[in-house]
Structures are given as C-alpha cells and as structure tokens.
C-alpha cells in the first residue's frame, strides 16, 4: 500500500514519535508543525500527554502570566520543547538574534525569546527548522542565543535532543557534542544533505529512511490534529490539511 502524504505530514509524524511516553510538551510562538506533532502525540497517547501551546485557549493550562512557562520548566514539569534558529551550528548552538557583527546585524531576527533558558531546563529540546541549507546550518553561529552544550559545572538538566529539517533527522550526541544523522526523509539523498549542511556530522554506513507515517497516523493528522491545530493556526491548517 502506497500512502500519499505531504512533507509536513512526514515531519509531524516523525516529531510525534519523539514525544512518545512523555507527560507534558510545551510549544512556543509561531510553531504550527511542532504544535501539530504534539497534538498527534497527544492523540496517540489517548490524552496522557499534556500539550501547552502558546496562543491556544483549548491547550493552555497556564494561569499565572508570562512567567509560568519558565517556572514550570524549572520545576521539571515540562519534558519537551521546540526551538528553531536563524542559524544552527554543529555544536547545536542556536542563533535567534542576527547575522553579522552584533549589534548592527546585517540581517536581524526577532530575538532570543526564552531560548537561553528553556534550552537549559527542558530535558528534550527538539530543534526544528524546515529550511535545510548552508545558510541556516552553519559551521559556527554568528551569535549564540543559547549554547548547545555547557561546561560540567553548569546546572543543565536540559538540552538538545534532535534536529529535524525538511531533509532529514539528526540526533544530538551530548557526549561528543555533535549531530548524528539518523535518517533521511523519503526522496532525499545523503549527497544532497552533505551539500546542504554547513556543519560536519557523524553518519552511519547505511543510512535509514525516515519512517513514513502509517495510514492510521495520516488519518489522525488529517482529522483530529488538523481540527485541533486550526484553533491556533488556521492559515497553516487550511494550507496543509485542506484537500
């Protein structure tokens, strides 16, 4: 059986698998794909997974203002979070500030948000950036909004777990402080990933393909997840899930 799916659906399914067995996943601003993945994982967990999604009324239990997400993470009550980056390097450093000399960046991004904190405190931080080019995945970020690794004496229960792009999945090896190519998305090649990645990374001899979503998963994505995520991201839901 050959199931048709969109690239976004593959990524949603892939990220959702990384959330299996967790209790609480938080989603920051402007994150429709991580949000969809979390809602999919929630559906699969039969409600055991709690999702706190910024901007959602239905999936947001925070009642203590802007500080609660951060306090909650510090209390160890958030298992996974998502971060992106204008630049991401091979040490999993992320740059949400700008390109070029700081502060007069020649390309300025919005800013670091809570990354410099949540990257330290949330055990499983999944980096997600759909664009997989040497412009984004660089040897060394121009500005470290949040570092991928820390010295041993730094309190850091959290950190990078994986990097998911439009082409592949990397797993971060904390001991080595580098990424390991875990799988290539269907239709993408190692040569392409090599060429489009600005940093060096480990890879296995035989590179597996990112598992395709099952028919049941696709059904869940297009049904419940599409419906639920449209509350917060109507434009995204319309674009990706509408037939």
């Amino acid at each position, binding site marked *: 059986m050959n199931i048709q799916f969109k690239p976004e659906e593959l990524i949603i399914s892939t990220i959702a698998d990384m959330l299996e067995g967790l209790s609480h996943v938080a989603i920051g*601003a*402007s994150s429709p794909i991580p949000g969809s993945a979390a809602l999919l994982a929630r559906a699969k967990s039969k409600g055991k997974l709690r999702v706190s999604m*910024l*901007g959602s009324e239905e999936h947001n239990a*925070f*009642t*203590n*203002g*802007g*500080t*609660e997400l*951060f306090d909650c993470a*510090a209390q160890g009550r958030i298992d996974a979070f998502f971060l992106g980056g204008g630049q991401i390097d091979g040490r999993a450093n992320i740059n*949400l*500030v*700008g390109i070029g000399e*700081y*502060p*007069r*960046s*020649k390309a*300025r*991004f*919005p*800013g*670091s*948000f*809570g*990354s*410099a*904190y*949540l*990257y*330290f*405190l949330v055990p499983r931080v999944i980096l997600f950036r759909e664009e997989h080019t040497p412009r984004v995945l660089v040897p060394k970020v121009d*500005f*470290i*909004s*949040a*570092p991928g690794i*820390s*010295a041993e*004496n*730094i*309190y*850091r229960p959290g950190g990078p777990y994986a990097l998911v792009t439009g082409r592949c999945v990397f797993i971060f090896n904390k001991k080595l402080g580098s990424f390991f190519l875990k799988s290539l998305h269907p239709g993408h090649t190692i040569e392409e990933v090599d060429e489009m990645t600005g940093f060096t990374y480990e890879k296995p001899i035989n590179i597996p393909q990112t598992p395709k979503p099952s028919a049941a998963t696709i059904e869940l994505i297009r049904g419940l997840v599409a419906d639920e995520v449209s509350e917060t991201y109507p*434009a995204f839901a319309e674009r990706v899930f509408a037939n």
Partner: protein
Amino acid sequence: MSLHLDNINTLIELIDSGNKLALAPDYSGCAMKAVRYLINHKVRDLHLVGVPSIGFQGDMLIGSGCVSTVETAAVTIGEYGLAPRFTDAIKKGAVNIIDGTCPAIHAGLQAAEKGIPYMPVRGIIGSDLLKKREDWIIGNNPFDKEDSPLVMVKAIAPDVTLIHAPLADREGNVWIGVRREMMVMAHASKTTLVTYENLYEGNLLNDTNMAAGTISSLYISALALAKNGAWPVGLFGTYPADDTHLRLYIEMARTEDGFQNYLSQYVLDKEIKE
C-alpha cells in the same frame, strides 16, 4: 479619587521623553490607540521594555523616531514576518538594542515588584546575550558552593507601564484575567497607564470571580476609555487582530517612505480629532 481621564490625550501626557516604558506583546494587552497618540505627541528617547517581547506597537514607535533603546527578548510580529522598522533601525544603528531572554525580563520586573535589587535566574550562561549585559552578573549559590554559578538579573523598574485591558471599573480597578504579567508590570512601575475597552458596572474587587484577575486601582495611575483600543492588534477574549490591516502595515512599512505614508494615513493627527 477618580483616576479616570476624559481622553487619551491627557493620559498620554503622563509619558515623558526619556521614560523607560514597559509594553506588552501583541497577544496580551496592547494600547495601540494610545500609542498612536504617543507618536503624535512626538515623545522622544523612549527606552522600551518588551514584557517579554514587543510587536507592532514597538515597530511603530521605533519607526516614528520615538525610541532610543529597546530592551526585549524579541521584537516579533509573529507570522507576519520580521518587524520592518525595527530591522531597519538595527541595520542603521538608529536604535540601541538590549537583547534579553523572557524569564530574565520577568525576573527583573519581579525583583522591582519585590523591592529587591536583583533576582537569580537559571540558564543563560554560555549565551552571547550575557556578554553585552552589565545588568546581569554571574553569581553563586551561597548555600552550596558546589552548585552551578547562576545569573543575577538586575531589577527592572519602568517609569511607565502602558497597557490596554478588556475591563475597568469606576474605582480604577483593571481586569486582566490570566494575563498576569501585566499585574507584575503595574507593580514594578512607578506609573501605570491603562486604556480599557469596556466599563465594568460595579466594583471588580467585590466579585470574587473577577477579583482574581484584577489589578487593584492602588497600582493604576490613570485610565481612559478606548473603544477598539487595541486595534489593529487583537485583544484577548474580546476581538481578533485585523489581519488585513496588519498585512497592509507590513507592506507599507517595508520602506521608510511607505512607513511615512502609513503614518500620515492612519496615525498622524488622526486620533487627536477622533
């Protein structure tokens, strides 16, 4: 003891050039109408504090030349793209940026709320943010010398907080629901100015359910009614953002000229005559 002012003009006169002005992000309570007045008042050298980020109002104030410093975890207009006037000002070095991170901004305000000089915050160490901040110092856990160093964030005490809220009553109490960061802003600031969407009949503090989401008039310096006061941004639980207008803003504000056109069409001298 009424704190109610007849019009937004009088409210805005309480903001001076050079003030440290705390503002809310687009998803919280943005006093956009008051901000248009502020632009008309030609206030200069504002030090904006985004709590913890700012959006359209920040971009407009920066573009209008009202701002010398932006202290924030982000200037973001969400899915609309990059904030055009902010990005341009950074490129030109026209504005001083103090890049922070959300929990440190909340911690700085909470320190001011508590009258303590600083608050310890986890994380941050190893971030380049730290290199540029004289108001963040690395300290230690006095109870455990083996523990990790941690950042001490200096208190942030804004001169003025300016917000828009769904409800206020005649006593000057202001309902903000779960948007509790606006309560911290009011507690931490010397002056808190509020525009509000609707008048609540009765006293918000006398209704047990409403009281839980209310900033007491004790912390409110002055307030004024502003119908549709958050437009074109949305107001939580009240109305959504005006998507079309915001896209128009983005389009026009792409260039300096376009932004000036936007100002003359939608901001300059408009609100005063309303």
